[in-house]
């Protein structure tokens, strides 16, 4: 049960003067239930890669399979839900409720089942109930984003892919989005977050994948990521790393302010102890 990308290369406009290679011989595997961060600079091929996960793009060479099926098979669209950048642009229906129902309707949900899926997704995304019958165009930017997320959650994907989900969100909606991602992960879904700034999400992740110029440049756990020279790091982690470089014997795989404090106190006590 995983998304498997094997030897995938991809070029846009092949055979023309505009041809540009976006992916070069990419191999990776994302298991069911994993929380994966895909980082890398803008233009490193992240967005191209995720469009292969549900067959929007087909590799020029190599193969992509989802739970053993070829990624361009239609049933895969139901398994891999993708929320693209600025998802508020995808809203179109007369009401919030109808818009969220668009996905499940396309996959043949009807009647009670449909109603259940839609309300559950809306509730999970934290959309207030009085907004259900509002036109999506009357909502604020943050609310629109939540509705768009509900629109993807309503499909009940096994793998949820989000492209730059935090960009342009105010702190309040940011927190609620992180909460949604955390609880989805707890319930056993795979969550794959693509971002050029992965520092904030590091504590949530099981696996980090970094991309550079269409290739994968790093795969590993958050701890390994911190040990490597990769950037960006969360502020608290880079502080600990700096302390370590100054010769303090602190751990650097720390993502939490409280934990960092405990670690600093521990080291301080040790030092005091050795001086006496």
């Amino acid at each position, binding site marked *: 049960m995983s998304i498997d990308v094997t030897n995938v290369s991809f070029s846009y406009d092949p055979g023309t003067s505009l041809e540009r290679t976006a992916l070069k011989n990419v191999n990776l595997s994302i298991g069911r239930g994993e929380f994966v961060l895909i980082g890398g600079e803008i233009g490193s091929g992240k967005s191209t890669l995720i469009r292969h996960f549900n067959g929007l793009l087909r590799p020029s060479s190599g193969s992509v399979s989802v739970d053993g099926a070829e990624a361009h098979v239609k049933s895969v669209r139901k398994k891999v839900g993708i929320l693209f950048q600025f998802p508020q*642009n*995808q809203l179109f229906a007369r009401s919030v409720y109808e818009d969220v129902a668009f996905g499940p309707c396309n996959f043949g949900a009807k009647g009670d089942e449909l109603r259940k899926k839609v309300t559950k997704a809306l509730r999970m995304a934290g959309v207030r109930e009085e907004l259900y019958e509002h036109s999506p165009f009357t909502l604020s930017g943050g609310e629109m984003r939540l509705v768009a997320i509900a629109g*993807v959650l309503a499909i009940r994907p096994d793998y949820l892919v989000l492209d730059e989900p935090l960009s342009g969100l105010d702190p309040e909606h940011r927190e609620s989005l992180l909460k949604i991602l955390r609880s989805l992960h707890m319930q056993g879904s795979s969550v794959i977050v693509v971002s050029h700034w992965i520092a904030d999400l590091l504590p949530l992740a099981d696996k980090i994948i970094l991309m550079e110029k269409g290739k994968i440049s790093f795969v590993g756990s958050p701890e390994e990521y911190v040990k490597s020279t990769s950037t960006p790091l969360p502020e608290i982690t880079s502080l600990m790393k700096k302390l370590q470089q100054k010769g303090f014997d602190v751990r650097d795989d720390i993502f939490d302010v409280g934990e960092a404090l405990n670690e600093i106190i521990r080291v301080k006590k040790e030092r005091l102890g050795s001086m006496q």
Partner: protein
Amino acid sequence: MSNLFFGYIPGTSPIHSLDPRTKIISVMVASIIIFNSGSFREMALIGAVFLALFSISRISYRAPLSAVRPMMIFLIIIFLMQLFLTGETILFSLAGFNATQEGLYAGLLLTWRFVYLLLFASILTATTTPSMLTVGIERMLRPLPLEKAGISSFDLATMMSLSIHFFPLLYEHLEKLKDAQMSRGLDLKKNPLRTIYSLSVPMMKIAFRSAGEVSLAMESRCYQGVSRTSLFEPRMQRMDFAALLGFALIMGSIVLLA
């Protein structure tokens, strides 16, 4: 396609370096001639002129091709309407409609004319930057008393260049939107009605919003629709007059000879 559909292709050919007005007037001349030609022989000769210009311009064959391709459906409709709705000598019947020999002739000629129009226009747009094109049109409109109608040639020029710039932008948005809705299970082929609805509503919103943003950005940089100077000052050179005269002579002689 977005880049090639009536888009500019940088180059250094003689046609690239001509004044935009020369090229615009030439396209006008070409379209007058194209619509005054009534035989296949004339059409063949015009085709030869096009091929000559095309090879001088040294642009990719994809540029004229991608100008025609999106229009295919209209061309086919025009052809079918001519074929079935004009003339008397029946060739064959289909679902109660009669295809006629005259219709076939007129249909072929008319679609061919439209194809030529697109082809000549594609050479113009492929060899002229949008800003040059705008300046050219603005200069040509300047002598006209447009102020009396409440608009200025500057307004028109700005509107034109903005629409040209919006083309690739909107196309890019459409592609992204298509990806998003397809990820929500939209089947473009199976559900045309839902496709149109779920794409057109957000596209309208995006178009209006981008237009609003652009107008704000322009106003905050003191745009006003009157008497703007332009970054590129086109100048008609001796080369331009020669090219214009030569082109008009060649095209005119095609009609006169045939």
